[in-house]
């Protein structure tokens, strides 16, 4: 045979690795695949039906066999049939798909949170325990994991095909997705929203580890400073604690246990405090004034990077008493007098306070 060896190699390679769907490595994957299989079957039936109608009629009623056509106006009954049956099937797919959608995008309350920042052209993952990864993500199997996403420039999209999850990273707002990996191994991590020149280079690997391996990895890769600790230093260097210190005469509301609580704003609006709210309150404080407080907080727009904001959010999230705030306050008060405006420079002198953008 004149089959070139290159083509032969290809065929062998393809047939040995043949797959129609990527590996199922999360709890959601089999659920998505079930619907995909259902839809594929329905589509095949539909396609075969249409194909058979066309082919069958073409054979039965071609001009040789049937020289004179019989004129038919139509048939309400038949037309109703092929309106209602597809409609019914589509509605089943709609309901099933929507249930799936809510399941995929509603994280369980005990999910472990990992922050991911997208930028041209890399993914930066921030573990609460202080590990930083670029274009890589290490996670334990069997633990629900929530990814809180944000972009610091253009739209990106955080996609792990083996987990059947995907979410856009949008500049200026948090989005979330969650998954629970089931099988240890390494999987593709793609940016699927076109984001500029090196879009196709914005790929990485997700490594799913067993719980023990994950503990080992955590210990080996720690930077020594957790996100919350970094947030604490930022909190101090930006002088947040000058007002948010929980003292009775404080000019800002106490932040202890504020995460997850219901606040009433000065506009009378009731809000639920979540990551997105905290981020907005730091950047656009004037529209997020807690009732009873004066609108005196300056904006930190342009002064804190997305990673810095994440650290602050993580710090505030874990703040269950004002003890630590007052502690840091006391230590900063011991420092020589420094105006709030030079917070950036102050941050730079403290090596661990990552995230303050240099002016």
């Amino acid at each position: 045979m004149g089959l070139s060896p290159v083509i032969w190699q290809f065929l062998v390679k393809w047939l040995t690795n043949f797959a129609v769907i990527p590996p199922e490595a999360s709890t959601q994957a089999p659920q998505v695949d079930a619907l995909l299989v259902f839809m594929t079957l329905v589509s095949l039936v539909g396609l075969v039906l249409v194909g058979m109608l066309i082919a069958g009629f073409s054979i039965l009623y071609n001009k040789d066999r049937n020289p004179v056509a019989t004129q038919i106006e139509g048939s309400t009954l038949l037309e109703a049939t092929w309106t209602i049956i597809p409609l019914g099937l589509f509605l089943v797919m709609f309901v099933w798909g929507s249930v799936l959608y809510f399941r995929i995008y509603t994280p369980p309350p005990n999910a472990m949170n990992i922050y991911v920042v997208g930028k041209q052209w890399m993914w930066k993952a921030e573990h609460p325990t202080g590990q930083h990864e670029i274009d890589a993500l290490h996670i334990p199997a069997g633990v629900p994991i929530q990814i809180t996403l944000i972009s610091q420039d253009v739209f990106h999209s955080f996609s792990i095909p083996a987990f059947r999850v995907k979410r856009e990273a949008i500049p200026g707002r948090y989005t979330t997705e969650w998954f629970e990996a089931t099988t240890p191994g390494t999987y593709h991590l793609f940016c699927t929203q076109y984001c500029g020149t090196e879009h196709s280079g914005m790929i990485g690997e997700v490594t799913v580890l067993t719980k023990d391996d994950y503990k080992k990895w955590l210990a080996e890769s720690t930077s020594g400073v957790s996100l919350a600790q970094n947030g604490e230093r930022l909190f101090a260097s930006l002088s947040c604690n000058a007002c948010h210190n929980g003292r009775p005469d404080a000019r800002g509301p106490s932040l202890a246990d504020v995460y997850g609580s219901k606040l009433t704003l000065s506009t009378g609006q009731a809000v639920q405090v979540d990551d997105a709210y905290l981020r907005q309150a730091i950047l656009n404080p004037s529209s997020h004034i807690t009732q009873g407080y004066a609108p005196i907080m300056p904006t930190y727009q342009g002064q804190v990077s997305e990673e810095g904001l994440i650290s602050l959010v993580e710090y505030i999230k874990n703040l269950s008493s004002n003890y630590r705030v007052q502690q840091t306050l006391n230590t900063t008060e011991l420092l020589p007098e420094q105006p709030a405006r030079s917070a950036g420079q102050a941050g730079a002198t403290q090596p661990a306070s990552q995230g303050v953008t240099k002016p």
Partner: protein
Amino acid sequence: MSDSQAVATTVDAGHAGGHAAHPPYQRHHFVSMEQQNETTNFGMWLFLLTEIMFFGGMFTAYLIYRNWYYPAFVAASHTLNIIEGTANTGVLITSSFTMALGVWCAETKRRKGLVWSLIATFILGLVFLGIKADEYHEKWVLHHVPGTYFSAQAFVHPTAEDGKPAEKPLAPDMAAHTEVYFSLYFAMTGMHALHMIIGIGILSFMLFRATRGAYMDGNIAFVENFGLYWHFVDIIWIFLFPLLYLISRYS
């Protein structure tokens, strides 16, 4: 239609006696003058519908941001020159009146009336643009033109001016959002002004023809449809004026 072969082979039957039967300004592909007028009129209305969708995109953006950044929109709106804005509204409504007068004059075949109405409309259009230009200039001086030259400082530290008390200061983060207001202000009024400029261009062409005696033979579809366009541009302004100038002015 009864004999298709005849249709195909008969040559040039349609034209020979055609012109006698219909007025010279009837286009050949129309059966009657009535059909021609209805058609152009319908086309004009449809075009105005596309214009509504065109401005609709910006009105949507306006409504969303006004809802989000209401204090910034109020403060920024108060810096607009309400006197000039009101004057412009008056100018434009008057120009709509003179335009309507023009259409009436064309219908009743008053040549002088038509020419003078069009001149009045033309001048009023230019006055509108002049006042608008002055307002733009004022925005430029105040650093309210979005882009690198923009500054929201005046909203953070408002100063009292002659007689008027100082506006309530905005927090810096909210003040920064006045740029969104001014972005929409310039985009919306700019697009409106562009429509005015195009309108004035067509108007001057029409005026030129009217001075030469056109539109006196009953063929006034052009005047009528231009009138529709002019009123439409006027109506857009009638929406823009309260939305941009009159936010929370009642105090």
